[in-house]
């Protein structure tokens, strides 16, 4: 099998400052979302990406605007990284009409067609064949686009993963499968859900390239994923990439995370991609400039919250027209 790390990685399309800004924006938006959730302004489920930001931001940095991203219900990170506005995201979490999906999707179903963000899917593994279908369309039309499909380590045991990867391999589709291995399938550790700890090895059964690395530094994530993206774009071949990461919060807001020790969490927080990102950025930029960048993000976050709070609820009149295109079928 190919060891993708041996290939030459093209540089990411963005500088570290931009990538750090995106990571910081995602982190701050989610911290505020957690606060709003606690006061009942955001309902349902809220699955935070805190700790994993380097994956989405590094990935999006090597995608074009017209490339596609498809992910799970832990979707805030890639939505922002792919170009969704903070306002659009926060308003959707608040269920408001100005949200990306008019308040119909919520946290788990973020879609932004203009930026190639095609969900936000909440049945584990079922979006993997769907993502392969998007890549199938790109190949069918020879449009040169790449699809990147994200899922967790909890998704690799279900049918959708195997059929999606198998068909993408069989038909040589331009797709990158990114398994964000955050070590837990909800509250169950990897050691109790898979028989082979190295998830990337599943690629060998389908005869596709694979890679596996820790997502600590965002630039490294970008460089490693860029190899798979180029393989998809130039050779129309899929890759399975296992990115090892960690979520600092529970599975969702209702999960206190008692299945892991404080020591384990603390150990991972030493490799917080934002801490590492800021350290690296400070070696490139003056501290004042990093502070200014963060202050700018803070304004954007506060603006998004204000926008979400002041936006109207969606009107019931949109319910039928968003169920069917054209006349309602009953």
């Amino acid at each position, binding site marked *: 099998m190919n060891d993708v790390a041996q290939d030459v990685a093209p540089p990411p399309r963005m500088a570290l400052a931009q990538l750090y800004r995106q990571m910081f924006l995602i982190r701050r938006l989610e911290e505020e979302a957690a606060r709003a959730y606690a006061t009942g302004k955001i309902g349902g489920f809220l699955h935070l990406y805190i700790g994993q930001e380097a994956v989405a931001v590094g990935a999006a940095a090597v995608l074009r605007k017209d490339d*596609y991203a*498809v992910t799970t219900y832990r979707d805030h990170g890639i939505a922002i990284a792919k170009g969704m506005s903070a306002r659009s995201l926060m308003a959707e979490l608040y269920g408001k009409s100005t*949200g*990306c*999906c*008019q*308040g*119909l*999707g919520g946290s788990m*179903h973020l*879609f*932004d*067609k203009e930026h190639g963000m*095609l*969900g*936000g*899917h909440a*049945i584990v593994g*079922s*979006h*993997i*064949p*769907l*993502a*392969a*279908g*998007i*890549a*199938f*369309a*790109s190949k*069918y*039309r020879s449009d040169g686009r790449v699809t990147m499909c994200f899922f967790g380590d909890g998704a690799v045991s279900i*049918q*959708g993963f195997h*059929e*999606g990867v*198998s*068909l993408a391999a*069989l038909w040589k589709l331009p797709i990158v499968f990114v398994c964000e291995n955050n070590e837990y399938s909800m509250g169950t550790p990897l050691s109790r859900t898979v028989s082979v700890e190295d998830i990337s090895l599943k690629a060998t059964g389908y005869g596709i390239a694979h890679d596996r690395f820790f997502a600590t530094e965002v630039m490294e994530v970008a460089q490693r994923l860029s190899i798979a993206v180029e393989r998809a774009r130039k050779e129309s071949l899929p890759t399975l990439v296992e990115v090892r990461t960690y979520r600092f919060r529970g599975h969702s807001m209702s999960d206190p995370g008692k299945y892991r020790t404080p020591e384990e969490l603390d150990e991972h927080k030493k490799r917080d991609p934002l801490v590492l990102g800021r350290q690296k950025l400070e070696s490139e930029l003056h501290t004042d400039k990093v502070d200014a960048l963060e202050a700018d993000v803070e304004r954007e976050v506060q603006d998004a919250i204000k926008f979400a709070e002041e936006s109207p609820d969606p009107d019931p009149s*949109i319910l039928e*027209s*968003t*169920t*069917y*295109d*054209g*006349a*309602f*079928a*009953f």
Partner: protein
Amino acid sequence: MKQLRYREALREAMIEEMEADDRVFLMGEEVGHYNGAYKVSEGMLDKFGERRVIDTPIAEGGFAGIGVGAAIVGLRPIIEFMTWNFSAIAFDQILNNAAKVRQMSGGQLNCPIVFRGPNASARQVGSQHSHAMEHFYATVPGLKVVAPAFPADAKGLLKAAIRDDNPVLVMESETLYSIKGDVPDDQDAIPLGKATVVREGTDCTVVAYSRMTHVAIDAAERLAKTNVSVEVVDLRSLRPLDEETIIASVQKTHRCVVVHEGWPYGGVGAEIADRVQRLAFDALDAPVLRVSQLDVPMPYNAKLEQHVMPQPERVVATIQRLMARG
């Protein structure tokens, strides 16, 4: 006008739509090199090539999902299930992705996809291959479901399904594939949601679809000999449902029987019974009755299978019970 078999009519619909629109492709098990498990797609691989007539491995969840993904970015897939029974494997893709992606995305995305294949009983294929799956799907907002009984309708409805911007499920029948019928040379798309009165009558309305339309006509012919005049409404489309045509017929006959394959608990028959009592209560001289598959898994034994399936005799007896109420 020409005579076509049901499978030929379906094939013509696919060929014409694929010739007219490069976004349309056919995908499924054995659709290409094998020329179709039931020969519906015979010759299409030769005509369109492997880019547009695509054989799949046995992976219903996978290729149904591929279809949905392709549809949301603008292609118009026709996904063939070798039988609708196997769609149970892909139920999640149809229920959670095809039917909901427009709503979840706040109307940003559409899913213009057709799922098609033979549905309900065949002949002695046992309980796992005899499901009438339309009842499960017709309850789902976001989907459309059609079930043609005749070749011309099969062609017209499939053409409409392919052109529709929503997911449309086409329920065919293994036992109808070989029947012949008149198909106009210029048969175009038939609007979804329009039932037809295939036999006029004055005493009782029988509402049916797919193969059961033929059973209903058989029952009507038998009853005509005893001076009971039965009107047969062929639904053609289950969702949208043409309640106008059903209600107009019941207002004329004052009685209504629904005939369908599949079990009696819930389902299309229960839906029609609800609408008729709600919309035409004052017109009814008797309760709305249903003739369905008996409430058991389909048995293999030929006589037991026939016993479990709706038969003209059971339809006749049911109508006679209604007539006996005066």
